């Protein structure tokens, strides 16, 4: 895969480049500021980009704005956003165009190289990779009629992993269950939440988030 890395801290940028290259991908550009990031995204059109939310020159949400701007010009351009903190607000903005290919993870997740590259791959394939923290916040939102109340504990944990963007096989592996059991759970979740089932992981997440959005405040 061809990867663009945008991160202002030299050590972390260097580490990310090494990590990505260690898994056999090519880093086509490693940049350290917002305008450079937007430029690199538009000229290289990478298979996936890793972008820090906070970048120079303003050290506000330059990285996020660059990613959103690039995706407006190249719809569905896969971007994995890294941040020191995760916010529902930003997750919603990223997911708003409903095109998939979005990752939003805490920087801490880089510590677990396997999971991180797994998330990177999911984003590159057009799926979503949301940080468990933000998923928990999204699912923990108050709703007028709580549709999640109808779910069993097991179904709820399956839903959480689904919202992170995992496939049935990956969920099965996490929960130490068979894939068949998971697909039974997902069917039951979709039935209880009134969502038409679909194979596509990306569409599953969108369906879940859209449902929570619609029934929320």
């Amino acid at each position, binding site marked *: 895969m061809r990867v663009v890395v945008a991160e202002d801290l030299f050590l972390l940028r260097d580490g990310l480049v090494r990590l990505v290259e260690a898994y056999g991908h090519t880093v086509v550009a490693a940049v350290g500021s917002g305008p450079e990031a937007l430029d690199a995204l538009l000229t290289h059109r990478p298979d996936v980009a890793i972008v820090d939310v906070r970048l120079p020159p303003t050290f*506000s949400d330059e990285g996020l704005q660059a990613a959103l701007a690039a995706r407006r010009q190249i719809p569905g351009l896969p971007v994995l956003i890294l941040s020191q903190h995760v916010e529902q607000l930003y997750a919603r903005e990223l997911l708003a165009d409903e095109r998939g290919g979005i990752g939003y993870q805490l920087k801490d997740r880089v510590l677990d190289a396997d999971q991180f590259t797994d998330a990177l791959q999911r984003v590159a394939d057009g799926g979503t990779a949301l940080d468990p923290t933000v998923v928990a916040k999204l699912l923990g939102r108050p709703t007028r009629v709580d549709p999640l109340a109808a779910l069993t504990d097991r179904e709820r944990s399956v839903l959480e992993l689904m919202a992170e963007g995992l496939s049935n096989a990956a969920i099965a592996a996490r929960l130490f269950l068979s894939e068949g059991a998971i697909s039974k759970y997902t069917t039951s979740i979709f039935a209880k939440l009134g969502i038409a089932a679909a194979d596509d992981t990306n569409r599953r997440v969108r369906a879940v988030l859209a449902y929570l959005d619609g029934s929320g405040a």
Partner: protein
Amino acid sequence: MTGSAEVGPARWARAVGHGLYRSAVVTGVTGVLPAIAVPVAFFGFRFARTWSADLSAPLAVLVLVFVGEIAMTLLWTGAAGWFVVAFLGRPLSRAARWAARRWLGVTVEPRYNPVLPVTRMATGFWWNGYAYHESEREARRRASLDARHHDPQLRRDALWLLVAAVTVLPAAAAPLACLAAGGYLLTQAGLLGCGIALCVVGLAAAPFGWRLLGPLGVRLLGASPRSLGRRVEELEAIRADLTQNQAAELERIERGLHDGAQARLVALGMSMGAAERLVDEDPDKAKQILAQARSSSAAALAELRSLVRGINPPVLAERGLVDAVRALALDAALPVEVRSTVPARPERPVESAMYFAVAELLANAVKHARASRVEIDLDYGERVLTATVTDDGVGGIGAAATEPGGTPPGTRPAGSQQAGSGSAGSGQAGSGLAGIERRMAAFGGVLRIDSPAGGPSRITVAVPCALS
């Protein structure tokens, strides 16, 4: 196109109509005091004169009697004026403020004494913020009366009524008087010209006379300019609060770093050392220790993150107040609606203070008010940033916290004691509000609470600031 396309005569007619109406209202609002005081003085003097009507005495005695009669008349007139001010001063001034704001865009903020909660003093007496009473019932019953009686704003209102009676009243009433006189002359044969002239003068003056309300209202309708001594006292209290807050904040941050991240880093270093020693003899054990070390570093990061959130929330730093409040609303345990008309980012210190105030108000609504939904409005106008938090909860939030400087001297001695005494009647939510009030006071901001028992509650934080 109706407004600008309107032709001259029609516009004039409208201006004159408005002018007459407003002149009448302003005359009514400012004329009450003279309307009562002048007849009292006139008939009072006539009545007093009857005492010495058939008196025949030396001149010196007559002069003395005359002086006594005048003094009596003044006494009666003063009493009448006092009654007007005591019972009608507030509504009359409020009406004048309303007219000034509505018609002239002049906004003046009065500062009436708030009714404070009743607290029991160590001496056994009950203190309602202005006076001591023997029983709680008496203290409560007298609370609003005492607040009014000790109110410096009431003296301002009296001054306004007196000054307005000799300035605004004649100016506003003159056109009406001209019209009335002109109308009367029209009915008299031979004075038709004079009548018409007077009517025209009255009509032409109608749109202007009452406008004297603006410049005078600005000076007299607002809160009394505080004496320098009073101001120094307030600033001293604010400074004491600031220093104390700052020390407490530093301590909190230090503790957070010391007990959290620092301890974890020490543990991390120790684990690494252990792993280093074990890596040759017992690689499996070393791997296990390293895995622990990694999770420990993740925990240290999480702790740092929450610490940073308490000092300078990331969304606030990145996006500013409005989005930070939106992010806060999304994370709340209740449905929260955020509306904003703030066009740009306020100054950073104000922004931060405002954010934490809103965060605290929202937390109060969630924790104490038993609300089912909350609305947050952020507005900016006339160089003032306001945040209004409305909830549909149980209400009855302590009336303890009120506008700084609105309380008479003595009720809030200074600094830290405010939190204690202020929250006496209102529990936890009240002490939080007192904290917000003190933090906003440092920026010249105010806190307004409208929370009747049974709800709904509406709390407004307003602070003057510039936008970047």
